[in-house]
Structure formats: C-alpha cells, structure tokens
C-alpha cells in the first residue's frame, strides 16, 4: 500500500482509495499502541521536524508519539508568527531546517496556504497539521477512522457539523473527506460563523439545532474560540450555549445510535454539556487514540519502505 503523493497538505484532491489506504494502514498500526513495548523499528534513522508556528498541545503530542512509536527521530520547533517581524521569513526558516536534512516536516501555521508555500520551496515531505482556516487533514482522517469504526462504513451516512464553520480547518477537512467517501454533511451554527457561500463546500445548511441533530448518524461539535466573542460574531457565551450547544435534551429526539465527536479541547458547558461530553455516545477519547494511529499511518506511508 502506498500514497500517490509526497505531501499531505489537505484532503482536497485525495481519492477515496487513498483515504481507505490511510485508514486501513492506521487500523493495522493501532495495535502497536496496545503492546507493552509500544515501538517498531520501521522509521529508524528518519528525522521528522515538528514545526509549529501556532500553539498546539494535542496535535503536536499526537504526532510526536506517532513518530516515536515508529522509531523516527523527532525535533520540535516552535516559532511564533511574530518572528516574521524579526525578519526571518517562513522560507528562510524552512531552508535552515532543511540544511539539517529532515525527512519530513509536520507543520502548523496560522496562515492558510503556508504549507503549500513551503512545499513549493523545499524538497522534503510535508504534512499539514493545520493551516489557518483551510485544512487539517490528519484530523479529518482520524475523524473518518473514528466514524468508520463506529458505523462500519463511510458512505451513506448523515453527518452534522455544528459551530464555527467559518474559521474551522477541521470542518473543511471533515467535509471534503466525508463527501469523497460518499456521506452527506449538514452544517449549523450562527449565521456569523458560516463562511460565505457555505453550500459551495458541498454541504446543506440546517435551519435549527433540531434539524441538524434529528436525522444525524454522527454529530461533530466544534470548539468556540473566545476571540470570536471579541470580534462580536455572537452576543454572549450564554446565548451561544443555549442556542448552539448540544445537551441531553437534543439527544432525546436524535437517532438512538447517534455518535458525538469533538476535535478538542472542549469548552464544557458551551458547545457541549458535560453529560453529553462524558456520555455513552461520546467518541471524543476514541478520536484522540485514533489520532495517533492515523498519524503513524501517514508517516509510514510518506516515509516508510513503500513510500513512492
């Protein structure tokens, strides 16, 4: 099994076959994390740089654990975007990194398209770990893996994504991946957090929380960022929680086998009530576990013996 690409910059343009390859590989690598000695030598001698221009705890940790379980050497580099003002450009920084001969760069950046810029200028593989409001493909893939494990398939499902679609790279990658695999996506949230021409992403827009919840096989809740409040995109967290938060009352009318997901970190009591977050339908911790497996699969497929 292999991928027909050197980079993983986004799920846009990634075929259903490739997605299936990643998920199948992730399934086969998942048991490594359950062994007493959680390590295989597959990527021994490979160097992976985690290049994070934006704060991240869980995605970076997940990538680092994935790399270490495959025996790759990892280096972490955090830079604040303010280093731009200090004079070093992204390309300069990347060329400096490249001089140390890494095999793969995992990159997080506040600006959409930053990994694409890097890919045009340096010759090593790049995994986009989130760029601005554009894509977060490893999160999209781990969501697909979580859904496939829960539902046994990825086609013909109804998935609702609720919250800040406008600024969410998770939403974009989820939507693209789910559409590619043959599921239908509905979005819901305050109008101020819907991107312009949202339907062009390949989704339908629900008119109410009930409409978004009632027919869904999967509900993905998105995190509310505090800065959206200062941007006056909605009036108060109180009203947000009342109108756009998911609580037990919504689940009474939902399909009995509906599952709830969230990319984390959760604002308890805002987009998710604690009962739902910790309830039997919540797959939030499965997402975290699957995240390591999916990232191991990406590293293996881009760097391993069968990489093209």
């Amino acid at each position, binding site marked *: 099994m292999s991928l027909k690409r050197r980079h993983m910059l986004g799920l846009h343009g990634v075929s259903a076959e490739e997605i299936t390859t990643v998920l199948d590989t992730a399934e086969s690598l998942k048991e490594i994390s359950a062994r007493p000695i959680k390590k295989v030598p597959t990527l021994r001698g490979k160097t992976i740089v985690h290049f994070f221009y934006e704060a991240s705890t869980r995605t970076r940790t997940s990538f680092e654990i994935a790399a270490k379980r495959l025996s790759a050497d990892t280096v972490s580099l955090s830079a604040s975007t303010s280093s731009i003002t200090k004079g070093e450009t992204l390309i300069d920084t990347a060329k400096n990194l490249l001089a140390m001969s890494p095999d793969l760069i995992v990159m997080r950046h506040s600006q959409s398209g930053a990994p694409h810029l890097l890919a045009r200028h340096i010759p090593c593989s790049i995994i986009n770990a989130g760029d601005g409001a554009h894509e977060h493909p490893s999160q999209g893939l781990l969501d697909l893996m979580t859904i496939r494990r829960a539902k046994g398939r990825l086609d013909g499902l109804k998935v609702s994504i609720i919250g800040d679609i406008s600024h969410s790279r998770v939403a974009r990658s989820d939507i693209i991946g789910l559409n590619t695999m043959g599921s239908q996506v509905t979005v819901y949230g305050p109008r101020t957090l819907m991107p312009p021409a949202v339907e*062009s992403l390949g989704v339908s827009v629900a008119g109410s929380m009930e409409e978004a919840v009632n027919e869904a096989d999967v509900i993905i809740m998105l995190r509310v960022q505090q800065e959206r409040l200062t941007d006056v995109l909605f009036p108060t967290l109180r009203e947000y929680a009342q109108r756009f938060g998911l609580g037990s009352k919504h689940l009474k009318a939902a399909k009995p086998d509906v599952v709830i997901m969230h990319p984390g970190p959760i604002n308890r009591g805002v987009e998710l009530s604690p009962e739902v977050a910790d309830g039997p339908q919540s797959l939030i911790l499965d997402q975290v576990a699957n995240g390591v497996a999916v990232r191991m699969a990406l590293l293996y497929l881009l760097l391993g013996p069968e990489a093209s």
Partner: protein
Amino acid sequence: MSQPRPILLKGGRLLCPASGIDETGDLLLDQGRIAAMGGELDAPADAEIIDCAGKWVAPGLIDMHVHLREPGHEYKEDIASGTAAAAAGGFTAVCSMPNTDPVNDSAAVTEMILERARAVGSCRVYPVGAITPGLKGQGLSQMAELKDAGCVAVSDDGHPVSDSRLLRRAMEYASGFGLPVICHSEELSLSAGGAMHEGPVATALGLPGIPAEAEVAAVERDLTLAGLTGARVHIAHISCAGSVAALARAREAGWAVSGETAPHYLALCDQDVGEYDTHRKMNPPLRSQADRQAVRQGLAAGIIQAVATDHAPHSVLEKELEFGFAAFGVTGMETALGVMLELVEEHLLTPLEMIERLSAAPARLLGLPGGSLTAGGPADVVVMDPKAAWTVDPAKMRSKSANTAFAGRKLPGRAMLTVCGGKVTFRLED
C-alpha cells in the same frame, strides 16, 4: 539637448482615436511633434525610416495609475526603472500615485519627482498629489500648490478617506482648481482583514474575504459626493459589477464622473488565485467570473472609460510570503497592451476602441496632451505588432520587480517601438 532625428513611420495601420482615423499610411515625427499624418509622406533627408507594414501605429499609451515607488521604496522600483517599464509596454506617459515615502503631499516632493523624471525618465510623468497630508485621512493637502508644482489630480490611493465630510470638502476644494479627485473606493470596515475576494474560492481556501460590497458601498458614496459637489471624480481600479452599475447611474445623472479598470480584472478572476499565488493578490482583489464579465462589458460599452494598470511593484520580500502576509499589488505596464490585444482578438473591443481606452480617454479625463496622431500634437507614438505572440517571462521585465500576474501567459502582441517627444524610448530587440 539636440533634437533627435526625424522619424518616418511608413505604411503602418494608423489608429487615431481622437480623429477616428483607422487607415494605412505614414506618420512623420519631427521637432518633438507629429509633423504629418497621411497616405504617403516624403521623408526629410536625415530621417530614420521605419517600415511599419503589418504593424499598428497609435498614440503613445497613457497609464493614469502607477506606483513608481520613488521616493522611498527604490528597492521595488524607481523613476528610471518604472518609466523604462512603461516605455517597454508602449506607454509614453504615466501618472504616479502619491503613496511614496515621503508622501507626495507637497510641492517639494512633486518637484523632486518631476526633476528625476526629466533626468532619468523614459516617459512623461504626471504626479498625482495626496488628498490629505501623509495620506492620513485628516486635513487637506495644499492642493493649489500641488497643482502649480505639476500635479494633475489628487488621490488617496491605497488609503481611502473614510470621513465623508472631509472627502466632500476635498472634492469642493479641488474642483476650485480644476483638479480631478481620483478615488480608491473601499469601505475599510467591510474589507478589514480580507485577503481575497469573498466567495466560494476564498471559503475553500480558508482565506478571509473582501466582499465586492466593500468596493460598491464606497463607490456609491464617492459618486454621491461627486453629485453633491459637482467635482470631477474618477473611480480607480473598478473590479466588480456593482461598481459598473453605480458608475453607469451616476453618468446618466450627468455628474462629472469617470472610471478606470485594470487589465487583471479583465483577464483574471478569483479562481486564478489557484494554490495561494501571491502574484494574484491585489486590492481590490480578483473578483468572481460574473464580476469580470460585467467589467468587460462596462469597458466595451464605454461606461468605464479608461484602462490603467495600477502597476504596483513589490519585491520578493513582500511577495514570497504566506498569502495572508503578502502585500497587495501586481506590476502591469509591460503586459497591459498584450492583455488588451486579447480583448481585440476576442472582439470585445475594436483596435481603435482599445487604443482609445489606453490613450485618448486618460488624456481627456486628466486634461493631458496626447492620445492623438493629428499633426501638431506631441510626437508620442507606439508602434505595435498585434501578431507578435510572446510569453510573459518575469525575468525579462524592465521593472525592478517581477510580481506580474501574467507570468507564463502567452499574449498575442506587444509594443515594438515607443517614441516619446520624438525620441525613441523603447525598441524591441529581436
């Protein structure tokens, strides 16, 4: 300075928008003027005779909207390189926008620009003065002094005057001295933070959008104030359907208003941003396909009178960056004629109409000489080969900057020879 030799341009297709002439013939340039236009002219003994068979002979192009970057940003462009780029594009005159450092808000800066242009320039330079000192949006520049020093208009290009009352005063005051006001129409509270046109492409790329309405709302305000004040108001770089409609209504109302668009809005749309191509990032941004069609139709119908390039050179320091961090603006003078020839090939404009939008219209709107081949006028002429297809290579530009939106594009034709004031300023080498 000794007068250059007379030049006889023989047997070209003479295209004179001022007189409507479109016929084969000769053009004689002597003593810095057009000496004669006609069927077959005799060459003076010392004349250089240039065979123009199959070529088009037209008034030198006039670009009413360029950024020469001098003083202050000479690493991007200076008056020598910018006017050389102009000459290579067939231009014999450019209007330089005031957002230099220092800003052109005083006679001293205007005079410095004119002096440099006389010393090192390859075309005529007409400075545009700032509406407000330092382009800060407060107070009024000393417009009478600016006009006396040589400014042909005032503009807030790049820094729109948000205060409507101040803009009203500026229009009233400028009109007292016959100075047109060139408006960069942008409602900043709607465009703030945006990186490209708001729509499906921006949504897919995850980039913050600039709605067309940020332009339209400001165009409507600026035109409304033109109606209120009776001032000569010109809308710069029109990019969308709503602005075309607003300009059409204002012109029907009889107000003294006009507008320009730029070649990139005629040739490209938001989809051409592709994978975060910062050479397709400018302000206003490339709009939707429907907007592009409306701008093309508006130009063909004469609602938009002029084409100007908004030539905005930036170095790699401003462009080889994350899309959101990259500067707005693209170069344009060396590709404008080629892009406009596409519109002729597509039968959107006749050759004479194309020349008119690029020469006679800007001359008329700003009261500049040129735009005509009739005898007695300045010997500002471009000879173009409409069939000399070429591929745009950023490395071969005369501009100091390579941020063209048309890299790799095959254009149907180009300028072969540019003459300004009787002097050859550009000759295409084979």
